[in-house]
């Protein structure tokens, strides 16, 4: 009840706050009221989150959400992460991060006299998320969720269902919160842009929103990078990026935000691109909403490796309304003011820096469009009514490669250009060293075996871009630190692309099978399977094994530990795997694992009325007819009224060979009631030397009558060979994968550098002063 009430209170306060902020024009008292209500929203939102967290920590399984995603066996860090393991909690986390951002946004806006309207739109976004939480509350009780099935009010399940083992990893504590913080920060350019339009301020908002756009790009970029690392290091996808719809949908707003940073920068320098900035600021937020719609509404259900829960028609509709409303708000305000926006006649000359940067912007927009179109394609096919289809990964790679080349070339060339006009003849002299660097890197890669033309072009532009940006880092490190962030990010992009090319296109792999003690050879490495160790013995809901895989080259041995994790989460039916990775500076050895039992003689599992050939002599066939459970029918207790330890069971089979029917007979076994395993009475098959044993009943949980039986075979007088575990290893190398991580760190780091340069007190004062000047004018 309390949680529900708090959500209503927060919703009410957010509407109130938004109302005051929107009507507050020139009225300080209304602004103050809006602010107070906002602090109320902040406090309530914190209370809601604390309340959910306390219910999770105290294992209150009466709440459906707590029951569905957590359990008493989870350690504290994972228990905390179940806060956002499901839909409702994710929305709450989104709302919470938004509210906290707003808390820091208010003083920034207040100081610059920009709070009116801006905060109003911001609170409106929070109100919408609260509305979703009203309809899809994390505080629902199990008897409310299952109301139609007569669950007793006050019913308390003893144990929760627990967290998906795939997610049981420290990454879940890091990646989602950062991603949501990034998503939330992407709201800020939008609210500044709307506010600018409504207040007929078409320029100042750009300067004010720039640091926040940098912040949003940095954080969402960090989130994307960590997602890639998670997929590579733990989830065993073999790579860091798969162009999966879920990944793509968070990449799209990041791409527009990064584009926006560039167009804002051009605007600062030239006064142009005002409308472009409006549109990009709108798109960034709208794409966040679109991403949420794609990943939370179930529309992409069949097309992603991520699992989606269908959230029900209400959330689907709410998200759709949410998206359309904010789109309409943007379109209408922009349309109304369109004629009033007076761009100075900025005729970018072909020889100007702003023109070259704009070309880079076009390349970025094309990448955005390609990712957007590819990701949305299954929905588009639904809407236009053609056969549903999905886009292959190679389409993204093919098209983005030339665009990546253009981005690198333009972003590097632009550095030699001057604003407004450049003497082109001087440029040619300046780029000679850069081009040489590109050629050298290309030659090196040819020697290393790269022979595809498009890859060589990419390598060339990487070399060019790295050299040019390095040159400018060195030039500017003393003089003008402002642009350092940009250079670093561009170097990062080049390194990322080089790493992606090398580790993606030049990864080799083999698939091998290994029993304990066996080994395989891979590119000069000897890979040995040296047993396994059970870990986390104190936890009773799982059997988790770390395998000892030794990767040996010359005299150097590295042991990696791929993991097989059997969990009660899926009734131990199949294990979850983690890869083992040997990381070295120039390449990783990546070992992805799967398991299969290995039998020297193949066992046969049969359900009633099914038949199969006999393993040691396939001219014979056996058909299972029925179970004979005479002993069991006498009851589970023996004469002394104690539970029986053993029971005789039989299975009726029909034997035949290629000459026809032989006979029907019963195979007996003594079943151990504790282990459910059988001690078979070995049955001689016809005149052969083969014996059949009835090893086990294979129960069908859904329909016991449909259970089957497992048979094994041996030679008369021989011993039964027991199954051995066989590892299936996919061993691959990932050349220069470290460039991917270094590159992404530089890209993200570059944004932070720019942000901190922008946020130094001196800079802030300057912005303030110029703002006041602008207002006085």
């Amino acid at each position, binding site marked *: 009840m309390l949680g529900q009430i708090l959500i209503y209170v927060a919703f009410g306060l957010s509407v109130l706050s938004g109302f005051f902020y929107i009507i507050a024009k020139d009225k300080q008292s209304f602004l103050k009221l809006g602010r107070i209500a906002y602090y109320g929203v902040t406090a309530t939102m914190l209370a809601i989150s604390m309340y959910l967290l306390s219910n999770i920590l105290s294992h209150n399984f009466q709440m459906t959400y707590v029951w569905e995603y957590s359990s008493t066996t989870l350690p504290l860090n994972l228990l905390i992460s179940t806060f956002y393991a499901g839909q409702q909690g994710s929305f709450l986390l989104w709302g919470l991060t938004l509210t906290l951002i707003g808390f820091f946004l208010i003083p920034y806006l207040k100081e610059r006299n920009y709070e009116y309207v801006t905060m109003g739109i911001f609170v409106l976004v929070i109100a919408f998320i609260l509305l979703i939480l009203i309809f899809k509350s994390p505080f629902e009780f199990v008897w409310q969720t299952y109301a139609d099935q007569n669950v007793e009010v006050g019913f308390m399940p003893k144990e929760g269902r627990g967290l998906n083992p795939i997610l049981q990893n420290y990454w879940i504590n890091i990646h989602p919160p950062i991603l949501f913080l990034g998503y939330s920060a992407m709201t800020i350019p939008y609210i500044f842009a709307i506010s600018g339009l409504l207040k007929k301020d078409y320029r100042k908002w750009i300067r004010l929103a720039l640091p926040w756009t940098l912040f949003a790009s940095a954080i969402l970029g960090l989130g994307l990078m960590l997602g890639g690392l998670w997929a590579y290091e733990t989830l065993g996808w073999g790579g860091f990026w798969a162009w999966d719809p879920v990944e793509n949908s968070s990449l799209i707003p990041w791409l527009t935000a990064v584009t926006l940073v560039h167009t804002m920068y051009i605007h600062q320098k030239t006064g142009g691109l005002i409308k472009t900035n409006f549109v990009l600021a709108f798109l960034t937020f709208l794409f966040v909403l679109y991403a949420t719609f794609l990943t939370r509404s179930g529309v992409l259900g069949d097309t992603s490796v991520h699992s989606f829960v269908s959230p029900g028609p209400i959330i689907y509709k709410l998200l759709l309304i949410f998206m359309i409303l904010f789109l309409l708000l943007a379109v209408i305000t922009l349309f109304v003011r369109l004629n009033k926006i007076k761009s100075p006649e900025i005729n970018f000359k072909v020889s100007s820096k702003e023109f070259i940067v704009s070309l880079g912007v076009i390349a970025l927009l094309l990448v955005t469009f390609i990712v957007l179109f590819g990701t949305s394609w299954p929905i588009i096919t639904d809407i236009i009514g053609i056969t549903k289809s999905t886009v292959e990964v190679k*389409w993204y790679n093919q098209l983005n490669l030339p665009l990546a080349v253009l981005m690198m070339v333009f972003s590097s060339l632009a550095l030699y250009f001057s604003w407004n006009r450049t003497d082109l003849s001087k440029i040619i002299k300046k780029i000679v060293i850069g081009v040489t660097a590109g050629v050298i890197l290309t030659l090196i890669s040819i020697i290393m075996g790269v022979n595809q033309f498009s890859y060589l072009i990419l390598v060339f532009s990487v070399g060019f871009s790295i050299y040019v940006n390095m040159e400018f880092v060195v030039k500017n490190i003393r003089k003008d630190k402002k642009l350092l962030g940009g250079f670093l990010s561009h170097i990062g992009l080049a390194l990322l692309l080089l790493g992606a090319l090398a580790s993606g296109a030049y990864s080799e792999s083999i698939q091998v099978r290994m029993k304990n003690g066996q080994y395989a050879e891979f590119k000069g490495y000897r890979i040995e399977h040296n047993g396994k160790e059970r870990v986390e013995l104190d936890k009773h809901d799982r059997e988790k094994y770390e395998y000892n895989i030794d990767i040996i080259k010359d005299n150097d041995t590295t042991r990696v530990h791929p993991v097989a994790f059997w969990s009660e989460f899926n009734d131990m039916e199949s294990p979850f795997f983690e890869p083992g990775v040997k990381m070295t500076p120039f390449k990783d050895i990546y070992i992805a694992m799967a398991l299969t039992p290995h039998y020297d003689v193949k066992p046969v599992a049969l359900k009633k009325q099914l038949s199969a050939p006999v393993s040691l002599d396939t001219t014979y066939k056996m058909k299972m007819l029925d179970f004979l459970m005479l002993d069991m029918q006498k009851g589970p207790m023996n004469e002394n009224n104690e539970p029986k330890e053993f029971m005789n069971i039989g299975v009726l089979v029909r034997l035949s060979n290629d000459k026809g029917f032989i006979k029907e007979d019963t195979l007996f076994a003594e079943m151990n009631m504790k282990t459910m395993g059988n001690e078979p009475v070995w049955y001689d098959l016809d005149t052969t030397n083969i014996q059949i044993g009835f090893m086990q009943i294979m129960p069908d949980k859904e329909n016991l009558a449909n259970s089957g039986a497992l048979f094994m075979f041996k030679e008369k007088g021989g011993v039964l060979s027991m199954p051995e575990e066989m590892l299936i290893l996919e061993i691959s190398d990932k050349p220069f994968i470290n460039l991917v991580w270094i590159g992404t760190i530089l890209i993200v780091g570059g944004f932070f550098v720019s942000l901190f340069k922008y946020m130094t007190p001196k800079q802030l004062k300057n912005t303030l002063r110029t703002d006041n000047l602008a207002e006085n004018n």
Partner: protein
Amino acid sequence: MNKKYIFGGLIILTFIALAMFSFQDNTTEFVTIAEAKASNENVQVYGHWLKDKETNYNPEKNEFEFFMEDESGNTFKVLHSGAKPNNFEIAAKVVVKGHYENDIFISNQILTKCPSKYEGTIEELQES
């Protein structure tokens, strides 16, 4: 006309054209089993695993075989080059990508979907 528009426009048009031309070869349609049987193209099929029919992993060839049924009740045998996917047993739905050839669907990718396990069921609630 201004040179800059020609230049920028050229980049945009080239890429849109490139994207469109390469699009057809790079999409995989979702079809029913009946349609998959009638076609020799690369397609993807949505359905569920038939537990009662023969399911087998061949470690020597690293091939996984099973039978699949779609919504309209048609079935076919799937031969997947690779190991049995994670979560295959508990998957409520599977999506296979590949093509149909000689009475078998040759698959190179399987996606498993486990919605039922991610949202609690009343039975589980009462068991716990």
